C-alpha cells in the first residue's frame, strides 16, 4: 500500500485510516482526525473499526480548517479562508455565517441524477466565513484526504462536503439485474460518486452506525450487501453477485450482494436498510455478475430464466 506525506509531515506516524504520514505529537491525525492514541481494533477477518473522530477534533484542509463536533450526529464546521471553496449537497447545510458566499453549483445530466435518486442541487460556499454541515442519521463522519492524482468511489448518499481541489463526477455502478418481467433493479443505486484530486484536497463522508475498513489483497474477494458499502478505492472491482439460500422455505428468495475484488480498500457501515428480493430468478445480471445456488439439488426448485447453468464465483 502506498504511503503519502500529509500535513505536518515529519514522517514519524502513518495513520492506518487515511494512510498519510504526520507528526505523532498531536492526539489526532491532522489529515483525517482519527485518534492516534487508540489501539487499532481489527477482527480475525481483517476488518478494522474506523475510530470515530473525537468531539472537537480539528482537520487541516489547506488554509481552511475543519472541526468535528457532536457524537450521535456529528457536525463538520469549516472555517473557510478567504477565497477557499467547498461544495456540498444542499440538504446537508446546517448553518452559515452571513459572510460566507453561497451559490448553486452547475451539475450536468440533472435529469439522470433526479431519476437515479441522487442529490440534485449542489451548492458551493466561498470564504471567508464559517459554515457547518451534518447528515440526518446517527453515525460517523469519515475524513478522506486525497493527494494529487488520487481518487475514490463513494456509494450514493454518503457524500457530505469536499474542498474545491477535489473534482466530482459520477459513474454507473454496474450493480444491476433484471427480473423476468424486464424490470431493472439497482440494489446499490444506479450510480456511484467518483471524487478525484487535482491537488491535495479533503473529502468528508457520513456513514450510518459504525464504520469498518478492510484492505483487500490483489485478487482477494469479499461479498457485502449493497447498502452497507460506503466507499472503495478505484483499484477495487465491483460486480453484482446473487445467492439462493439452501432452505426449502427460502428457495424463492435471492440475496443480492456486491462482489468486491482487490487490491485496495473498502469501507462498510453497520447500519443499512436490508433488502431481500422475492423473485423466482433473473433475466440478466450486471457486467461480470455471478450467482450461487446453495441447494444440494438445484433441480428440485423452480429455476429462474438464467439459472440453468450454475455459475460459481
Amino acid at each position, binding site marked *: 500500500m502506498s504511503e503519502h506525506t500529509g500535513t505536518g509531515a515529519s514522517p514519524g506516524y502513518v495513520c492506518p485510516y487515511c494512510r498519510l504520514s504526520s507528526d505523532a505529537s498531536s492526539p489526532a491525525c491532522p489529515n483525517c482526525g482519527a485518534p492516534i492514541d487508540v489501539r487499532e481494533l481489527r477482527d480475525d477477518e481483517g476488518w478494522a473499526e474506523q475510530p470515530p473522530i473525537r*468531539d*472537537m477534533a*480539528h482537520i487541516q484542509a489547506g488554509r481552511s*480548517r475543519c*472541526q468535528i*463536533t*457532536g*457524537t*450521535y*450526529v*456529528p*457536525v463538520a*464546521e469549516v*472555517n473557510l479562508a478567504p477565497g477557499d471553496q467547498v461544495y456540498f449537497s*444542499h*440538504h446537508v*447545510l*446546517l*448553518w*452559515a*455565517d*452571513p459572510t460566507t458566499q*453561497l*451559490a*448553486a*453549483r452547475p*451539475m450536468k445530466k440533472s435529469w439522470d441524477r*433526479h431519476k437515479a435518486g441522487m442529490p*440534485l*442541487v*449542489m*451548492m458551493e460556499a466561498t470564504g471567508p466565513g*464559517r459554515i*457547518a454541515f*451534518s*447528515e*440526518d*442519521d*446517527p453515525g460517523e463522519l469519515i475524513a478522506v484526504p486525497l493527494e494529487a492524482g488520487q481518487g475514490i468511489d463513494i456509494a450514493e448518499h454518503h457524500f457530505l462536503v469536499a474542498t474545491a481541489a477535489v473534482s466530482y463526477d459520477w459513474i454507473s455502478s454496474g450493480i444491476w439485474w433484471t427480473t423476468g418481467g424486464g424490470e431493472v433493479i439497482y440494489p446499490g443505486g444506479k450510480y456511484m460518486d467518483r471524487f478525484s484530486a487535482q491537488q491535495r484536497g479533503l473529502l468528508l463522508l457520513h456513514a450510518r452506525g459504525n464504520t469498518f475498513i478492510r484492505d483487500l489483497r490483489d485478487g482477494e474477494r469479499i461479498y457485502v450487501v449493497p447498502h452497507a458499502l460506503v466507499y472503495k478505492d478505484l483499484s477495487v472491482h465491483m460486480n453484482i453477485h446473487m445467492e439462493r439460500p439452501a432452505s426449502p422455505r427460502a428457495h424463492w428468495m435471492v440475496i443480492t450482494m456486491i462482489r468486491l475484488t482487490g487490491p485496495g480498500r473498502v469501507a462498510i457501515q453497520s447500519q443499512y436498510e436490508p433488502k431481500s428480493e422475492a423473485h423466482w430468478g433473473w433475466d440478466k445480471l450486471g457486467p461480470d455478475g455471478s450467482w450461487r445456488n446453495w441447494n444440494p439439488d438445484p433441480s428440485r426448485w423452480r429455476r429462474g430464466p438464467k439459472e440453468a447453468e450454475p455459475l460459481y464465483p
Partner: protein
Amino acid sequence: MEGIVCSWCHYANEPDRVSCGTCGAPLDVADVVSASGWRAAPRLQEMTEFRVGNITCQIAGQVVPVAEFTLADGDTIFFEQHTLLWKERTVSLTGKNLRAAGQRTVAGMPHAVIEARGPGRIAVTRDASGEAVVLPLHPGIETDVRGHAFLAASQNVAYDFIRIDKLASMLHGGPGMYLDRFVAGDTQGLLLLHGYGNVFQRRLGGGEKILVEPGGFLYKDSPVAINPVPVQAGAGFRNANWAELTGPGRVGIQSMYVHRHII
C-alpha cells in the same frame, strides 16, 4: 467554601455536587465549545437527577433518553400526548386547554397536550435518538421552541405559540409558521426539550446574525428575531429559505433534522 456555578443554567450548587441540582449538567467536565462559538448542550450522565420546585426529574438512557418525573401531591407537568412512556396509577391525566386549538391543528402544532398531576411517577420520551436538553426558565424568561420539540414542562410555565412573520416561512421554512412559546411565571420553571442528534447553543450579540437551516433550528430566546431568508439553490429551482436569526440572545440547534427537499 464557595459553591459551583453551573455554566449552563447559572445555578449556584453546593461544592460537593458533581451535577447541577436544577438542570443536571455535569459540573466536573469542561465546557465543550467549538471554534465557531457553538457550545454542546451538557451531556447528562445516565441516571442524573435534578430538581425544580417540588418536581424531581431523572434522565435515563443515552441514545433515546427518557425523562422520569417524581411529582409531589398536586404538582403538575404537561407534555404532548404521544411522548408518554409510562406512569404510576396515582398520577392523574387531564387534557390541557389550549388557545386557538383549531389554528394549532391546521398549523400542524401539538394540539393534544396532557397535564399529569401527582403524586406519583411518570416518564416521557420521544421516539428518536438525540439528547434531552434541560432549560430551567428563570422568572420572566421567554423561550421559543420549534414545534414538536418540547418534551415536558412544569405547571408554572405558560405555554402559547407565536406566528413567524411572512408567509414564506410557512411555505418553505422547516419550523413552519408557528413556534411554541414558553414563559416562566414568578418562580423558576422547568422546560425539557428533545433535540434530534446533538444539540448546540450559541449566544448571539446584539445585531449579530447567523443563517440556520430551518430544520436545524431548535430554540431561541424571544428577543432573537427569526426571519426567512431566500438563498438561491440553482437555476430552474425555487429558492430555499433559511432562517436568519438576529441577536441578542441564545440560539439552539440540532444536528439531525428532517429536511424539506427543494424539489
